[in-house]
C-alpha cells in the first residue's frame, strides 16, 4: 500500500510541476502566442473538438485504418510468411526480396500510389497495409526457419505427418518471431499512417495535426500529438500485450 501511495504522490507532484512550468513558460516566454500555448488551451481545444464531434471522427478514422492493417497482417501476412518459411527453397528465395521491400517503407511508395489512385482513402490504405505486411511476413518466415530442428526430429520419431509438424511445432515455435514482427509492423504502420494522413488528407489524426499547423492552431497540434502517443500505448497494452501474454509469455518464450 505504501508503495502505491509513493508512486501516485510522486506522479501527482510531477504532473503538477510540469503543468505549472508549462503554463508559466507559455505566459512569459517572448514568443508569439501560437508558439507555446498553455495547457489550458490544449484542454479547451479538446473540449471544442469533442463538442463538434470532430475528434471522435479523427480518432475513429485513424483507428479504423490501423486495425484493418492489423487484421490483414495477422490473417494474411502471418500465414504467408509461414508458408514461405516452411520450405528451404522458398525461404531462401523470399528472404532477400522481403528484406529489401521491408526496408522501403510504405511511405516511400506513396508518391507512386498517388499517381495510381490519387489523393484518397485507397492510397492511404495501400501505404499502411504495405508497411504492416512486410515486417510481419519477414519475421514469420524467420520464425519458422529458426525453430530448433530437434523439435521437428522429436515429432518425426513419434510418427507425425508433415502437416502435424507444421501445426504442432513450426507454428508455435515461430510465435516469438511472429509476435515481434506484428509489433514491429504495427509500430511502423502507425507512424506511416500518420504520415500518409498528413500527405493525402482524407481525415484522421495525421490530417488533424497537419491541418492545424496551417492555421497555427498549435494547441490542437499538441492535443493531436498527445492522442497519437496515447493511442499507440493503448494498442500496445490492449492488443499486443494480451496476445503475447496468452501465448509466448505463458510458455516462457518472451523475447521483447
Amino acid at each position, binding site marked *: 500500500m505504501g508503495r502505491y501511495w509513493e508512486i501516485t504522490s510522486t506522479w501527482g507532484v510531477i504532473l503538477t510541476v510540469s503543468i505549472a512550468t508549462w503554463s508559466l513558460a507559455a505566459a512569459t516566454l517572448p514568443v508569439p502566442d501560437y508558439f507555446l500555448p498553455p495547457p489550458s488551451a490544449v484542454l479547451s481545444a479538446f473540449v471544442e473538438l469533442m463538442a463538434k464531434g470532430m475528434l471522435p471522427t479523427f480518432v475513429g478514422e485513424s483507428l479504423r485504418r490501423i486495425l484493418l492493417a492489423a487484421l490483414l497482417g495477422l490473417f494474411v501476412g502471418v500465414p504467408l510468411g509461414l508458408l514461405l518459411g516452411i520450405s528451404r527453397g522458398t525461404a531462401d528465395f523470399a528472404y532477400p526480396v522481403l528484406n529489401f521491400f521491408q526496408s522501403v517503407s510504405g511511405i516511400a511508395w506513396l508518391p507512386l500510389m498517388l499517381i495510381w489512385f490519387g489523393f484518397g482513402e485507397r492510397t492511404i490504405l495501400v501505404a499502411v497495409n504495405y508497411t504492416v505486411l512486410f515486417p510481419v511476413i519477414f519475421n514469420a518466415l524467420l520464425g519458422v526457419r529458426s525453430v530448433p530442428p*530437434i523439435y521437428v*526430429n*522429436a515429432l*518425426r*520419431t513419434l*510418427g507425425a505427418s508433415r502437416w502435424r509438424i507444421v501445426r*504442432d511445432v513450426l507454428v*508455435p515455435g515461430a510465435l516469438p518471431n511472429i509476435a515481434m514482427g506484428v509489433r514491429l509492423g504495427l509500430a511502423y504502420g502507425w507512424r506511416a499512417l500518420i504520415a500518409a494522413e498528413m500527405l493525402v488528407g482524407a481525415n484522421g489524426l495525421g490530417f488533424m495535426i497537419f491541418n492545424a499547423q496551417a492555421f497555427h492552431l498549435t494547441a490542437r497540434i499538441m492535443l493531436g500529438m498527445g492522442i497519437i502517443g496515447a493511442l499507440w500505448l493503448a494498442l500496445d497494452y490492449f492488443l499486443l500485450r494480451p496476445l503475447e501474454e496468452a501465448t509466448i509469455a505463458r*510458455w516462457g518464450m518472451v523475447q521483447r
Partner: protein
Amino acid sequence: MTAKITIRGLGHEYVNPFTRERVVALDGVDLEVEEGEFLTVVGPSGCGKTTLLNILAGLLPKTRGTVLLNGREVTGPGPDRGVVFQEFAIMPWRTVEKNIAHGLEIQSVPREERAAIVRRFVELVGLGGFERKYPHELSGGMKQRVAVARTLAANPEVMLMDEPFAAVDSQTRITLQEELNAIAQATRKTILFITHSVEEAVFLGDRCCVLSGRPGRVKALVPVRIPRERRGWKLLMSDPTFDAAKEKVFGLVREEVGKEV
C-alpha cells in the same frame, strides 16, 4: 529367434562441408539387440555413437549395410522407434500432460484412453501434480522425465536414448538412472542407451557395447551379469562384479581414447 534389432556392416560416411574431406563415421558395425535387452553403447567422443542412434532412429541415412527392426528394414523415423534426445526436445508450448500425450494424439488414440495412458505415465515418472505445468517451469531432470514419459506412452517397439542424462546434475542423474532401471524392469522394453559415462553404461546395461574411435566399429561387447533387481547405486557401490565390469569397459574405452591422442 531373430534379434529385435539387427545391424550388419553398417557404414556411414559424409563430406565435411568446411574442409571438404570425406569423413567415415561408422565403418562396418555389426550388432544385435535382443528383445527386452538393455544395451548401452559407450565409446570415446566422436566415435559415432550418436550417428549410430540417429541411423537407427531413421533420422540419418546409412551409406551401406543393413539395419533391421523385427526383421524389417529401417527407413525413416517412426513411432516404432522412440527416441529420447539429449537436449530437452519437449515442446515448450505444451503442458506436461499434453507433451506426454503428443505421440498418442498423433496415433489418434481416443481421448479417454489417451487421458488414462497419460495419467499412468505421469505416475510412472513421478510427475504427479505437475501435469499442467509448462516446461519452462520445470527443472532439467523433470524435463527429461517428461521426455521419457512421452516416448514410453507412444509404446514404441524399442527405445533409443541419446545421452539423455548428460545435461542434468549428478544427483538428479543418479535418481534418473535408478528410475529408468525400474521402468526397464516394469516395461521390459528393448532399450539402446548411448552414453559416454562408463559407470552409467555398466550400471544400466545388460550388455555394454564399446565402440572404437573414428571410424566407429564394435570393439567389444561386455556383458554385465547383475540381475536388474540388484541394480541400485547403494548395492552396487561395493559389488565386485560391477567393479570388474566397470574396469574392463573403462580399460577398453581408454585404449580407444589413447589411440586418438
